[in-house]
């Protein structure tokens, strides 16, 4: 991630440029947060399940991309420019499969016990983190990114827009679009929404609610996997990379109103930008601290978030 020294000593034009670039850094963060929040909102907003291991599914996706990168480098060097997109797809499916497995072995017993799912998924995150440590090592790794993702383009002399940032944002918006389409236009999406709103009736009309639950959870995890793939373009991956974003992601989801696509988008944008800008003006961690504090204060005053669902319970 970009780091900056105090802004005194820069000209006004330079500060403008810095803010634009910082804004773009914020956009990369926004994209990752958005993807994470999307997956989590589906799981939490739709199913009421709290997945504290969500960050680890992101890391899983990132590690899958890394693995693909290593395999391609060692065995199929000619595929180097093309592998990345395939790796993203692989990340999605691997994370989704692991998610389905987790749902089958653990989550499905805990649906009416949200506090217990908190603790159980925390345990899962510990296990996954250690598994990453054992398999991939404790040091951070980066996949070899393809040529076309490197570099930047310069609209003006002072502004440097990294291509990977643009790619990541495009990826996120694509995923949001794809998921929205899936949830609201496809048959399975309809089944998913029906199961959440009225489980008994859905079962009575022949929807296999257990399978729907599994797929919903797997979808949420798969999206986290894609977030991980996106993450590899802006940072290196270590066993605890996931835990870095989990609190932020939760706050994004809760802040946005949990049940709501637009809320999630607005919320992740706002929080990412706030963090990015405040990181510039305040030193290091204090930027994050301030952002978090503001969010928590707002949540204490307005616990239902920005766009609460107005359903009569």
């Amino acid at each position, binding site marked *: 991630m970009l780091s900056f020294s105090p802004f005194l000593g820069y000209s006004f034009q330079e500060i403008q440029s810095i803010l634009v670039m910082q804004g773009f850094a914020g956009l990369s963060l926004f994209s990752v947060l958005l993807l994470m929040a999307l997956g989590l909102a589906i799981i939490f907003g739709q199913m009421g399940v709290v997945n504290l291991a969500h960050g680890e599914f992101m890391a899983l996706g990132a590690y899958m991309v890394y693995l693909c990168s290593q395999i391609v480098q060692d065995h199929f060097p000619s595929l180097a420019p093309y592998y990345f997109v395939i790796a993203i797809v692989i990340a999605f499916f691997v994370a989704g499969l692991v998610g389905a497995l987790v749902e089958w072995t653990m989550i499905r017993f805990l649906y009416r016990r949200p506090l217990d799912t908190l603790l159980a998924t925390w345990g899962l995150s510990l296990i996954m983190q250690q598994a990453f440590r054992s398999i991939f090592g404790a040091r951070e790794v980066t996949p070899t990114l393809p040529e076309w993702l490197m570099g930047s383009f310069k609209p003006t002399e002072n502004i440097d827009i990294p291509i990977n940032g643009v790619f990541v944002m495009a990826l996120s918006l694509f995923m949001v679009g794809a998921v929205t389409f899936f949830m609201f236009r496809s048959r399975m999406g309809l089944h998913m929404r029906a199961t959440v709103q009225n489980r008994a009736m859905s079962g009575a009309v022949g929807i296999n609610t257990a399978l729907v639950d599994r797929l919903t959870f797997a979808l949420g995890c798969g999206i986290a996997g894609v977030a991980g793939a996106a993450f590899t373009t802006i940072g290196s991956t270590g066993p605890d990379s996931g835990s870095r974003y989990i609190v932020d992601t*939760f706050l994004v989801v809760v802040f946005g109103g949990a049940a709501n696509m637009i809320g999630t988008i607005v919320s992740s944008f706002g929080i990412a930008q706030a963090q990015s800008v405040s990181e510039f003006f305040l030193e290091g961690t204090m930027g994050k*601290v301030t952002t*978090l504090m503001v*969010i928590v204060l707002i949540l*204490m005053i307005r616990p239902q978030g920005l766009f609460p669902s107005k359903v009569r319970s």
Partner: protein
Amino acid sequence: MKSILRKFLGGREGAVGIALLALIVFAVLPMTLDIFRLNLVGKYLTYGFVAVGLVLLWGNSGVLSLGQGIFFGLGGYCIAMFLKLEASSPANTAIQSTPGIPDFMDWNQITHLPAIWVPFRSLPFALLAVILLPTLIAFIVGAAMFKRRVGGVYFAVITQALALILSLGIDGNQGLTGGRNGITDLRTLWGWDIRTQSAQYVLYYVCGALLIGCILISRWVLSTRMGRLLLAIKDREDRVRFSGYDVASFKVFAFSLSAAMCGIGGAMFVLQVGFISPSLVGIVPSIEMVIYAAVGGKMSLLGAVYGTLAVNTGKSLFSENFPQLWPFFMGGLFIAVVMLFPNGIAGVWQSMRVRFIQLRHSAKRAPALASAPSAPTPLLEGSEV
């Protein structure tokens, strides 16, 4: 006399439980362990304060806080500040650019003691702060959230965020708080050297006594109408409002009381271990402390203490021999407790006892039991282990 027995000790059975714990803590362990390991047990006992608080808050009121490290840390930092100031006398710090202030402030080119540190020159103030500061923060945070009916998962995640905020805040302000390294190199408490072996023995016993004191206080609270009310809130919070109670104020009470206990634990930690750092304040330690209560039994005060000792002993055994396996084991513990042993070891113990009693009863009077509902021993009557 009998009612005191019932309230504080939980009946004859409860008294036996406390006596057993006291025996183990005050006699068995000091006699069988060397001072180094005893000091370790003392450290584990300080985590026990948090676990006991969680029995009140989580087991009995149904409120899961993933941020108890906040209060543990606040209590620890309060006493650490006093001890650090004492250790940073002008004589001890003569080689600093500014003598008389803690070393980390000197490294950060700070030239006079920040205002927030000044009151901690006084021991009475520091001791009061150890209990009152966590209580006050819990009161404010709890009131803000419970009055707005923020509960369950939302509350848990926000406490997590608060723990993160505090640990990052401490971490990022080395000049004020000692930063990531924390406050170290503590020497004397009002002239008494806390690093000597004899001091460690004394502190161990003080810690044990305070912990048992917290258990007795919790027992008392749970034996009053408050105890039944907290259980009712855990069961059916909305209904309790319609019984005429302001639910928020009870949750605030439980939260504040548990915070006070965490603060005491934090202070005893600093006195026995000799330092405090943000690593005891953040998300990871806070959730870990939850597992101590969960393993021991979140409905059982004594169980929580045993759970803390067990998990921490396991942790250091694993770290000595198979450090890579510990996170797998701990993760598995979280999952196992949630899915298989929701009331921890104490819960397993309790259900074994109930089944044993039922077997004995049914052996004695088989025919008469046909019509009456087979109700197991009421959960609350003197069954607190």
